[in-house]
């Protein structure tokens, strides 16, 4: 890996995520467009302005829910979007909603990590009427605990969502508890200029990937950049290998512990990963994903499997970044599943004003809200297919196509399984595997023993 170009760049990279509010995976990409206050300010203004087409379309879309809340009043929204650009994007949403319905949206922004860490006490205390959260088990967990409000009647009015989004918003009891707003895919990123120069082809199978990796090593490149200091990035590798080797349904069953962790199929995932490890960048446990992304950025590494937010580290060369979905391993399984975490909104169990909260959620799920978000924060993919996405960059467009063509969408390991299992068992478990890839039997046995104590 080369050295960073400036001292400031180097220092910025070393700040631990707990210290730097901006370095968080779910918001990084959005924050990527920078602290450009001018940009944020401009978009904010445009959203504040009397955009008559937005307003009129909005009131139509708000439908009967809004009618029952008949304008005025106030609804509170708890947001974890503490970074500059997304924060302004959410403010733009609030302002647009106020302009169209007269209802004030009071946004309470909490620092990203702190919001997640305090979610238990937050939801049991006096939560805001509407709050930001993630799809997947992480959403269903709180729904089944009775800490979130039923949004089935809101979903009856939502339009422009694929079935994938609807099922990602559905709780264990078949009711909807979540309104999806934005998402990003995980894929293998690379620099087309490097690949063109060396004549590499996008691998379609695991063998092709291995051959390509060997060629890259011969050419003096690190085939796959890799980092797992913070413990979560390698979960993405586990996810995609499990999705390719055992398929989506097995993955979801495993995440729900309907299948045992010492199942031979799980061992196969780890053994396949162990075969690929020599192609990965060495010593991942001391490296942050930002440092690994620099290996790709500086053309020292050939590929990097990460979320779309990886481009945050490559803002200077955005036109020289491309990606492909992880290649097929088993022809019977194919390569049509991937991780694409969805962010969105939920409603408190007992909102102060349920009609207004639901009216707001209906609007947030509308294509008008998605249009406001695309305009004010051009670095995310919006969930509503009806939105006007003509402003997307090439990467955004390709990301949207990739996710759109996927048959099954997983969220991410730490969103698809119990939070305690993900953070206190899987995270150290995967790190233990990376330290000692040989003891797969021991690892799987340990994971299963611990899973049994948590999934009771």
């Amino acid at each position: 890996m080369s050295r960073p170009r400036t001292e400031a760049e180097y220092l910025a990279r070393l700040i631990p995520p707990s210290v730097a509010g901006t370095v968080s995976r779910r918001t990084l990409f959005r924050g990527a467009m920078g602290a450009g206050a001018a940009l944020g300010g401009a978009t904010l203004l445009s959203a504040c302005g009397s955009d008559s087409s937005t307003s009129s379309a909005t009131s139509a879309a708000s439908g009967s829910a809004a009618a029952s809340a008949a304008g005025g009043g106030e609804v509170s929204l708890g947001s974890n979007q503490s970074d500059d650009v997304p924060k302004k994007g959410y403010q733009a949403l609030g302002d647009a909603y106020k302009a169209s319905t007269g209802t004030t949206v009071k946004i309470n922004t909490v620092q990203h990590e702190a919001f997640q860490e305090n979610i238990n006490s937050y939801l049991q205390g006096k939560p805001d009427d509407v709050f930001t959260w993630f799809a997947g088990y992480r959403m269903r967990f709180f729904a089944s605990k009775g800490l979130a409000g039923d949004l089935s009647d809101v979903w009856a009015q939502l339009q422009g969502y694929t079935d994938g989004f609807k099922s990602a918003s559905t709780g264990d009891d078949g009711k909807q508890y979540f309104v999806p707003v934005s998402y990003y895919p995980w894929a293998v990123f690379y620099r087309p200029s490097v690949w063109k120069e060396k004549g590499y082809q996008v691998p379609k199978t695991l063998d092709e990937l291995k051959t390509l990796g060997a060629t890259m090593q011969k050419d003096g490149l690190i085939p796959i950049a890799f980092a797992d200091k913070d413990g979560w990035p390698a979960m993405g590798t586990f996810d995609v290998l499990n999705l390719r080797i055992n398929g989506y349904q097995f993955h979801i069953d495993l995440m729900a512990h309907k299948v045992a962790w010492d199942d031979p199929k799980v061992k196969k995932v780890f053994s396949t990963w162990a075969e690929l490890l020599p192609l990965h960048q060495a010593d991942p446990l001391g490296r942050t994903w930002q440092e690994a992304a620099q290996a790709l950025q500086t053309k020292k590494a050939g590929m990097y499997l990460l979320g779309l937010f990886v481009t945050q580290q490559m803002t200077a060369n955005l036109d020289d970044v491309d990606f492909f979905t992880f290649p097929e391993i088993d022809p019977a399984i194919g390569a049509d599943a991937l991780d694409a975490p969805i962010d969105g909104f939920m409603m408190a169990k007992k909102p102060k004003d349920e009609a207004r909260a639901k009216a707001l959620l209906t609007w947030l799920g509308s294509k008008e809200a998605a249009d406001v978000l695309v305009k004010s924060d051009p670095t995310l993919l919006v969930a509503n297919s009806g939105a006007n996405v003509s402003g997307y960059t090439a990467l955004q467009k390709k990301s949207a196509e990739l996710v759109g063509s996927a048959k099954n969408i997983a969220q991410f390991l730490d969103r698809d399984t119990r939070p305690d299992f993900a953070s206190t068992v899987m995270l150290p478990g995967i790190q233990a595997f990376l330290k000692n890839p040989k003891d797969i039997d021991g690892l799987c046995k340990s994971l299963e023993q611990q899973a049994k104590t948590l999934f009771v």
Partner: protein
Amino acid sequence: MAASNADTPLVTSAAPAEAGGAQRGAPRSGRVQRLKGPDRLVVLTMVMVPLVLVLGLVWLPALSTVALSFTNWDGIGGLGTIKWIGLTNYENVVTIYPPFWPALRNNLLFLGVLFLIATPLGIFLAVLLDKDLRGSRIYQTPLYMPVVLSLALVGFIWQLQFSRDFGLVNAMLQAVGQQDAASPVDWYGDPNINIWAVLIASSWRHVGYIMLLYLAGLKGVDPSLREAASMDGANEVKTFFRIVFPVLRPINIIIIVITVIEALRAYDLVWVINKGRNGLELIGALVAQNVIGEASRIGFGSALATIMLVISLVFVIFYLSTVMREEER
């Protein structure tokens, strides 16, 4: 309150002081009385406020932690949702929770290194600085500087030194040809050595702390003691170990206690580096991982915390028994 009517010697002896003030108002009945009205209120307040604080902030949390360690609870719902599961958490901690034993080992390692290396080094530096060397103030400043910094900041500073790809340590090793640039040492990522890197950073701070405390103690030693020793022909080393060190016994005990406290509460440094994972497990960090945040394994985390409490108690009992024996003498 049967004792309130009895005239204990303590109360009698306290009475004259009180009487002087009371006589100015109403004439006294002559009978020796216990504290009255406002005085009693003041005493009561002075006893009750700390008592409530100690009970509420120390004993209540400590005892509820012990109680919760026998439960399985995710922190959601009322106390009625708590399930009592006996010793299962403890059983799981010692049998199937992989980070526990490394954490215990690391905590003891911390204690050992601070106790055997950092603390003696601090004492040694204090003795040197006590010799009135030229410019000893200048030496003191850099040695004491780390103490002013929070451990979180110390972690950040050493991250700059120990970074695998950009750190000063590797760059210097490569510059003098002691390291191959193609395979740098992963100071914070390699689980076999990162605890040592942390110990260096932690000792760096600890040495300055001990040095300052000991220096203050040394300044208070009566110079005539040393003169007498040198008159009797004792050399510097002998003077220190036979005269100065025993005289500084109160300071020594404080230093032992501080070293133990620092070793047990070592947490912020590893938390800043990698949240106490991958070779940097410490019991304090494991408690935080399990209890704080979405994981919310309240019962399991409480079991870990209780284990830490028991370990601390060993040292607390040792300290208290030493201090009490001292007082008896």
